[in-house]
């Protein structure tokens, strides 16, 4: 099985989808000759033509909005937002149209589309290129939100999202496009949406994370292990559907949890996780649930972003706090 980076895995899934189903059409800014600014669509226009890998005007709302019409015509569009931070320019189409079109038309028009969007920090981008806005989208009924942490999952979950009859926002960690690398089958395969993955077992505490933050969680767990704490990591893989069973089991097994994400704290997805954990596993809790998130500030310029994006140290500190709480 070859090793692939996350961006190679995504490209592989897109190529398989275009080859396997002629209804699939990829559209976005710079996805054609340029192959996408991160090269996620490199070579696809040469293979499948400019009618199926379509360079679009610089206009997020109509990239997503025209995809609604493409879906109504019977196609399976895969619009790319160049950065999730610019998804706000299309938010009304995603939240107000894509997410509720099936409901509005009472089943006549589903939205079998996958909106791909890179997000996340630590790569010294200009403003709005790194924002983690997933919580806003998880709050849009009708939409699914998928956030893989490995190259294997990125390929398999993208393939599954394309097959899924519901619209999916597929968030790709731009920091992980090349840094995240693991074994990925060449052949087409799928990974179901809504099933969390136990990355690491631990008997004292579990860190609940998703996307590139899973790497931070793993490092924090290793550091904590050196301090004598047995810390597990649960990778949610998707926020909607949320794997409530896995969340319950993971927390019930150890009694302590830290939730971790790159989006800002207040009304971030961690708040949903904490609420769910207390509903599902309250009686097994031995300490308050820790939350490690970005601060409630705008995403800052590059020289200070490492202070903003949750670090291994902040996660370890949250682990210590939880472990030192008398139970």
């Amino acid at each position, binding site marked *: 099985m070859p090793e692939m980076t996350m961006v190679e895995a995504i490209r592989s899934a897109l190529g398989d989808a275009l080859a396997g189903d002629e209804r699939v059409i990829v559209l976005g800014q710079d996805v054609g000759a340029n192959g996408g600014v991160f090269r996620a669509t490199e070579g696809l226009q040469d293979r499948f033509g400019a009618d199926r890998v379509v360079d679009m005007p610089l*206009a997020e709302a109509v990239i997503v*909005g025209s995809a609604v019409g493409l879906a109504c*015509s019977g196609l399976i569009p895969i619009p790319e937002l160049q950065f999730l931070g610019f998804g706000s320019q299309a938010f009304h189409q995603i939240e107000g149209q894509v997410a509720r079109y099936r409901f509005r038309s009472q089943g006549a028009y589903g939205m079998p589309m996958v909106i791909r969007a890179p997000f996340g920090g630590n790569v010294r981008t200009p403003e709005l290129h790194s924002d983690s806005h997933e919580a806003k989208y998880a709050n849009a009924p009708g939409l699914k939100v998928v956030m893989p942490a490995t190259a294997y999952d990125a390929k398999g979950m993208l393939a599954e999202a394309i097959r899924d009859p519901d619209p999916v926002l597929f968030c790709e960690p731009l920091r992980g496009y090349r840094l995240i690398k693991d074994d990925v089958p060449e052949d087409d395969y799928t990974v179901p949406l*809504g099933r969390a993955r136990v990355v690491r077992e631990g008997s004292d505490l579990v860190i609940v994370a998703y996307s590139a933050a899973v790497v931070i969680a793993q490092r924090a767990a290793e550091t904590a292990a050196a301090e004598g704490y047995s810390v597990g990591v649960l990778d949610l893989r998707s926020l*909607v559907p949320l794997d409530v069973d896995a969340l319950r089991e993971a927390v019930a097994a150890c009694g302590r949890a830290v939730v971790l994400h790159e989006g800002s704290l207040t009304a971030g997805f961690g708040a949903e996780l904490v609420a769910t954990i207390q509903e599902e596993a309250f009686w097994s809790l031995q300490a308050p649930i820790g939350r490690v998130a970005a601060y409630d500030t705008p995403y800052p310029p590059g020289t200070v972003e490492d202070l903003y994006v949750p670090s291994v140290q902040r996660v370890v500190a949250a682990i210590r706090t939880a472990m030192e709480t008398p139970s």
Partner: protein
Amino acid sequence: MSTAPTVDPAEPLRLLAPDGTLAPGHVPGLDLLDAWRAMLRSRTCDERCFSLQRQGRMGTFSPIAGEEAAVIGSAWALEPARDWVVPQYRELPAMLRQGYRLAQALQYYRGNPAGSRIDPGVHVLPFQISLAAQIPHAVGLAWGLRHQGSDAVVMTYFGDGASSEGDAHEALNLAGVRRAPVVFVLKNNGWAISTPVRKQTAATSFAARAAGYGIAGEAVDGNDLFAMHDACSRAVARARAGDGPTLIEARTYRMGPHNTSDDPTRYVDPIELEERRALDPVARVRRYLLAEGLVDAASEEQAIASLRADFDAAFAEAEAGSVPGADALFDHVYARAPQRLEQQRREAR
């Protein structure tokens, strides 16, 4: 490429004068009596819906009065079995011609989700409340149909108010780039609720915007059924032939309120309203039909009576539908619903 003339904004295309006189040499290209009946149906519907809303038997309704020629003249340029309508929300006659049923529309106005279900083979998208959001959908639909080898044309509607939205700009621009087979019918009815068109734009012509998108544009007397049908038929033919989209500006006037909650006496100058009422598009066609001997008072009365009966039957059907239960909240949100949503469904029952 055949491009429509961008008519001098001061002189929109007019074929039927307000006194009912047809331009010399013009032969109406549409099924006149069918279009006439649709105009009367629309008026009947406005009257009945308004009255039912006041009785508490209907939800919010936006009457079409004044815009019948703009909607019917354009939609009658389509072939319903082949072409598509992507509405805003004030285009019921166009939806009905495509095969959406009046009883469904009345269910929709009554707040029953079942009213939004589009039957298979009916080429419409649902009513759109988010102004201008449907315009990108129309472009994508037209592009997608063309991509799959169809020669269908998509007609979409929006108003002078919605033209200020970014979606209108993005969609018109994309339609030009992709030469999408779309006819954009911009109904300039003078008002966005209480905001007059002069506060919507400094421009004197919406049709002139077409040039900026590299597409055809034409200003039309939107109260002239024949001019609307003529301009839209040419636009449909261009789109079908692969010659790209057209922006039709229908210059019309909203003779009634924005909707059943609106009180236009707060902002409409009564003298202006009287002047505009004199240009009533239904009265204009009526004058022509009477002069031509195609209808008379008796046949008109008969038509109205039968349309009222149709409406009442459709309303009875809409009212008879059971009040939906909690499942209606959850049905059709997803094809494959998340587990926790199914749990919420069980709790809500």
